[in-house]
């Protein structure tokens, strides 16, 4: 089975400065069709700009300095702007972190979903808006017909994120990029939205690139995980294996910083570990890699 997405030695950074200062120094990973792949790392490690590079939405001073992004065997970086545009939304879709600001405040949510059908399936607006109601129903928005006529400000954060998901999945994409999709939500809403993404993508056969700094969420959602640190992918493994047996010092540090249920913080032997106390010299971190090859034949 060939991977859906292959990221090979991706390098990106500021293109305008003569130095070509790289923010992403060397990132390679594969995502198989239908697989959910997690990308973890602290903020600033480059998870988000990696995902923006894949969907081709890097903003100007940022650009790709080297490497390849193959999607269904096609090099995305070699595509024309027009070809890349027809990929976006139709084959690769994205859900962003901030549901409060990610929707156009002046258009009804129904219309914003309908725009996907008009754009990619050539439907008329009326038909598209009917399809949008179905899409809202599929993300379990109660009263979808009435809700389709709502404006974003009339909805809660959780509902808006459902709208974003309905919009992203409208054209049954092959890959969904979810960039911290639940970070801004309440914990209870968070669980529902995660469940929704998991179930819908499973039923559509959509692969997910799931970006989070929250290891708990990653553990729940992803089959495999890549750990990013300072613009490099430093460790990659099956989720269970990674949690059971972190190999890289940075991963150990990340896991150590995670509070465990039942552990007494002050008096017990287990203590929350500051990453810097585990890692003495950050500069050696990016030099070591622990990439566990995907078991061939499986997945």
């Amino acid at each position, binding site marked *: 089975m060939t991977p859906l997405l292959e990221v090979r030695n991706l390098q990106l950074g500021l293109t305008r400065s003569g130095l070509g200062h790289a923010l992403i120094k060397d990132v390679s990973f594969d995502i198989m069709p239908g697989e959910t792949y997690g990308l973890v790392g602290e903020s600033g490690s480059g998870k988000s700009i990696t995902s923006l590079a894949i*969907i081709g*939405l890097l903003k100007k001073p940022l650009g790709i300095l080297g490497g390849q992004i193959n999607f269904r065997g096609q090099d995305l970086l070699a595509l024309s702007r*027009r070809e890349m*545009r*027809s*990929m*976006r*939304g*139709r084959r690769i*879709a*994205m859900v*962003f972190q*901030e549901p409060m*600001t*990610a*929707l*156009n*405040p*002046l*258009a009804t949510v129904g219309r914003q979903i309908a*725009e*996907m059908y008009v*754009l*990619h399936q050539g439907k008329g607006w009326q038909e598209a808006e009917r399809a949008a109601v179905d899409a809202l129903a599929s993300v379990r928005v109660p009263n979808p017909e009435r809700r389709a006529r709502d*404006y974003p*400000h009339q909805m809660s954060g959780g509902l808006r994120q459902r709208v*974003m998901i309905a*919009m*992203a999945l409208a054209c049954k994409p092959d890959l969904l990029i979810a960039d911290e999709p639940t970070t801004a939500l309440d914990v209870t809403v968070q669980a529902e939205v995660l469940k929704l993404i998991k179930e819908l993508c499973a039923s559509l056969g959509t692969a997910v690139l799931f970006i989070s700094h929250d290891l708990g969420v990653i553990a729940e959602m992803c089959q495999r995980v890549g750990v990013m640190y300072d613009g490099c992918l430093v460790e990659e493994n099956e989720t269970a294996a990674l949690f059971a047996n972190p190999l890289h010092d940075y991963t150990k540090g990340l896991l150590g910083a995670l509070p465990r249920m039942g552990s007494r913080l002050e008096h017990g032997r287990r203590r929350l570990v500051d990453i810097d106390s585990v890692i003495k010299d950050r500069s050696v971190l990016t030099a070591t890699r622990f990439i566990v090859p995907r078991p061939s034949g499986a997945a």
Partner: protein
Amino acid sequence: MLRFVVRRILQIIPTIAVVALLIFVIFSVVPGTFASSLFSDGKRAADPQLMARLNEQFGLDKPVHERFAAYISDLARLDLGTSFRTRRPVLELINDRMWASLQLAIAAMVFAIVIAVPLGFLAALRPGSVLDSLTMVGAVSGLSLPQFWLGLLLMYVFALKLNLLPSFGYGDGSLRHLILPAVTLGVTPLALLARTTRAGVLDVLNADFVRTAHSKGLSEAQVIRRHVARNALVLIITTVGLLFGSLIGQAVVIEKLFAWPGIGSLLVDSVSMRDIPVVQGTILVIVLWFLVINTAVDVVYAFIDPRIKQG
């Protein structure tokens, strides 16, 4: 929606009442009266008998509270009083001049919008470009320009040197007479509007929902047409309304310069003649104009932006 409109319209009333009160207070402390100003040029000796008669005729001999009561009861009947100078009702004088002023203000605003909005838009789409820098430099220069000086220079070049356009006056009311005063009056709103449009569009372009629109696979043009334009329009319309309302204030000088028969030149002439009823009436009408336009803007705004109606 209807309730919103009605509420906004009703809000005009207390403001205009306070302004009327304010104007009355200011002018009731006027030291010189119209009658005494007749003799202020010193060519004729003041005639106490004539002055007393005039003061009596205009009710200026009565105590302040009686004059105030008369003023308010007249106002309530939409009677702005009678001009000391021409003996005609103030409302009639204003009505004669209103259209010329409206014409000038609308022409100036159209001139400003037609140039400023596209310019601000293009500048925002290419920040840091030559066009953007030129727009910003032009805008701050336009804001610093004394309009009547620009008008004087335009008059000198286009009317006196090139003989292309009439230098002043309303003439037959044709477009040719309107061009110079409208361009002169339009420069400041043009500069302000270009600046606000640019800032507003830049804000919208950096908004998260624009990134979402791109992630849907919309083309640059579609994103701008469907998502950026409408959101930027909210700010642009607000600015246009504010500018249109304040235009009449600036028009005073321009009308005087080009001898344009609007309410601005009526106001200036009446001030120098101490024709107080006309001054009071004109200022009230100008304030009312400003408030009506602001209300209209709020209503349009509520139609465009669904978030407003809620509050």
